[in-house]
Structure formats: structure tokens, C-alpha cells
């Protein structure tokens, strides 16, 4: 499996990926993290419209692992209050992109 390599904590360069590219990367990362916990074949088919709990059946430990993995990859913080509106994979991608873009505009 080809994991995106981003071990460093360096901030995004001036030519940082745009919003569409970030969205693509977030979905790839979600599939990769789920693939580490579940059968890789099943996680490769995860789509934006699927519900994290109702469709993919993630339990609390898997959800936590997913959140922490996204935080590490995109250098964002997702807190408890965020989780209220998150139902689908697409909701989670939106949140991550929003946080990543906001972090970029901060000094």
C-alpha cells in the first residue's frame, strides 16, 4: 500500500495544495488510516457519502485513531465540539480542509 509520506512537521510551502487537492488528500488519508485497521480492500472503497458509524461501523477507538491520524497528517486540531456535526466521510473531509485552510492563513 502506498502511504503518503509526510513524516516531517514543516509547514506547507508557498505553493501549498489548493482546496480541491486538500480534499483529495484528506480522502486518501482516511482510506489509508482505515486500511491499517480494517481490510485494505474494503477501505479503498470508502466514499464521501458514507456514514462513519452507520455505514462503515467504526467504533470509538477507530474513530479516535482516525481523528488523531488526520490531525497528524494535516497538522490540525479536531476537538470534541467538532464531532457533533460529523456524520459522513464527506463531513470529516470538509472539517479537515476547513481547519487546514484556516491554519494556513494564521500568522
Amino acid at each position, binding site marked *: 500500500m502506498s502511504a503518503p509520506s509526510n513524516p516531517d512537521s514543516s509547514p506547507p510551502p508557498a505553493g501549498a495544495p489548493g482546496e480541491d487537492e486538500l480534499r483529495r488528500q484528506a480522502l486518501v488519508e482516511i482510506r489509508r488510516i482505515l486500511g491499517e485497521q480494517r481490510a485494505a480492500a474494503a477501505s479503498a472503497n470508502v466514499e464521501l457519502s458514507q456514514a462513519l458509524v452507520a455505514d462503515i461501523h467504526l467504533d470509538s*477507538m477507530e474513530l479516535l485513531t482516525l481523528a488523531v491520524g488526520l490531525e497528524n497528517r494535516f497538522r490540525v486540531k479536531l476537538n470534541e465540539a467538532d464531532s457533533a456535526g460529523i456524520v459522513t466521510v464527506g463531513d470529516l473531509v470538509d472539517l479537515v480542509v476547513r481547519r487546514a485552510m484556516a491554519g494556513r492563513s494564521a500568522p
Partner: protein
Amino acid sequence: MAPSSPPAIAAVGRALPPHRVEQETLIEAFRALWARQHFNLERLEDLHRAVRVGGRNLALPLDQYPALDTFQKRNDAWIRAARDLGAEAMKRALEAARLPLDSVDHLFFVTVTGIATPSTDALLVNALGLREDLKRTPIFGLGCVGGAAGIARAADYLRAFPDQVAVLLSVELCSLTLQREDLSIPNIIASGLFGDGAAAVVLEGGGRSPARARFPRVRATRAVFYRDTERIMGWDVVDTGFKVVLSARVPVLVRERIRGDVDAFLAAHGLDRSRIKHWVAHTGGPKVLRAFEEALELPERALERSHRALEETGNLSSASVLFVLGELMDEEGEPPREGDLGVLLAMGPGFCSELVLLEW
């Protein structure tokens, strides 16, 4: 031959290692490690606070852990510390039971946190001067259910030999299993939850008369295995030692299964939950304790001793339920009365439960 009384639990001896470290100090020590891979350290700190553990008594001083960078070094430290802490717990238990060390006929030794051959029970024959005809049964791999299962197996043995004395010794040094390089969420939770400790239970066969005025007898036991749940809890044995497998399904399974299992067990002995005065539950963690309370519809404070044990020492794996039993037996305020019934219960890798019906 007329059937004798069920085996009696004469005493429980507990021993904690001397190196007390508060949870906030441990969090501080873990921070630098977590920062190697993780971005949101506050989230991980919150995980260590959410397990409701106030601190742990560690087998070694905190500053000695980083040097234990191989399985061999950790396990060598485990062998020494397990022998010494186990000896302490056994001496205390036999003293409380007012029995000499050479009265022990059978030593059951349970652990899941280290391995030794000759096993720790053999080291204790030398360290404590136990008898040369001592029967030894080392049991590895039961995890958190080992304390309850150990009482059950020792009681089984004493039903065949009612004039004998058996000791169940549990030694768990969870801190010496820590995989520092494993920065997964289950391992971070485990490193916040599990602690070190040893407990020894003296059991006397039904043909004997324990010295203590009031004590419980092991009236019945039951093992329950949950098929096809192998990945819910356990170890992956890797080159660096024991890597924890821990799933969020543990409290879910408690909620789904424990009420039916307990009710069936009690019904087989003509009882129901309303007759049970004392609940001695393994201190799995806050979610597991809540699941026990709700599934079994327990009165408020029924598991107070378990909550307190969790706060004081963390989850001691197989030793935890024995610490809670010891606290109940040594209770001075409102000690159990003659005729009181109790259920001791724990769950562990398999996944499985062990249930023990106690009668004072």
C-alpha cells in the same frame, strides 16, 4: 464419604511496588514520546485523564524505564520484580490467614505481563522456603480474567483435596510491558490505564477450619467463552515484546452479555441478582465499570471499591479483582455478614468471563 463444605477463602494479601507516580507526572513523562508522532498532544493527555486513574505504583523508578529498550531487558527486570513483589504478597496473605509458609500444598501462579522458566512460582520455592513437594501450576495468558479464573481453578483443586491449602498468586507488572515505540491509540490508552501490583489468595479446603472469624466460601464457579472474539483484547507478541490489542468492543460486549451470563449462573443455583449483597468486579476501566453497573442494574455505590481501586492503582490486570476482594474481606466499617452472598466477576482475552459465587 460425606461431601465437605466448599473451599474457603481465608485471606487476600496485597502488595504494591514502592515507586508511586501520580498520573500528571506520567503524562508529563509521556509527552515527549508522543510528540515524536502526534500533533495534538492535549487530546492524548485527555485520554490519560479520562481513564480516571490517579496514579500508579511502578515496579521500577520512573527514570529507569527508558533504558529498558529491548524485550530481554524488560523481561529480566520483570523476573526480579515479580519474584520480590510476589513473595511480599504471599507472606502477607499467609500471615493474615495465620498459616506458616510450609502449609501451602499447591501454588497457582497467574500473570500475563512477563515470562520465566523456571516460572516465578519455582523462584518463590527458593525465595520463601516453600515445601519441596509443593505442587505448582503456572498459568500464562488469561489476562484480566486470571484472578477470577485462578480462584475458580484453585477451588476446583481443593474440592478434590479438602484437607489442603492452595494459594493463588497473581503478579502483574504492566509497566514492564510498555512498548515505547508503539504510539497507537490503544497503546496510549493502555499506558494510561494499567499499573503494577501483586495479590495472593489463601484458599483452604472444605475439610479445614480457617482461623478468621468470617470468610467467604467458593460456592460455585462458571466459565463463559465468547466465540470468535479473539481480537478484542490480548497481546501481539512482537520482536520487542508484548504489543497490546485493545478494542472498544470490550464495554460493548459487557453490555451485551454479562447480564444474561450472570442470571443464568445464579438461576442454576436457585438464585437471582436481588439476593447478591456484594459485587466484586474487575476494575477494567471507567467504561467497563459503568457497563457492569448498567447491565446488572446494580445499586449506586455497589462497585465503589472497584472505582476506588482504579483511582488508586490503575488496572492491575488479573490482580485487580483480588485487590477488590481483599478490600471487601478486610472491611471494618460494615463487614460482610454470615450468610451474605457475593459475585466476583472478571472478563479477559478469549474473550471470556469467569464468575464466582461467594457465600459468607
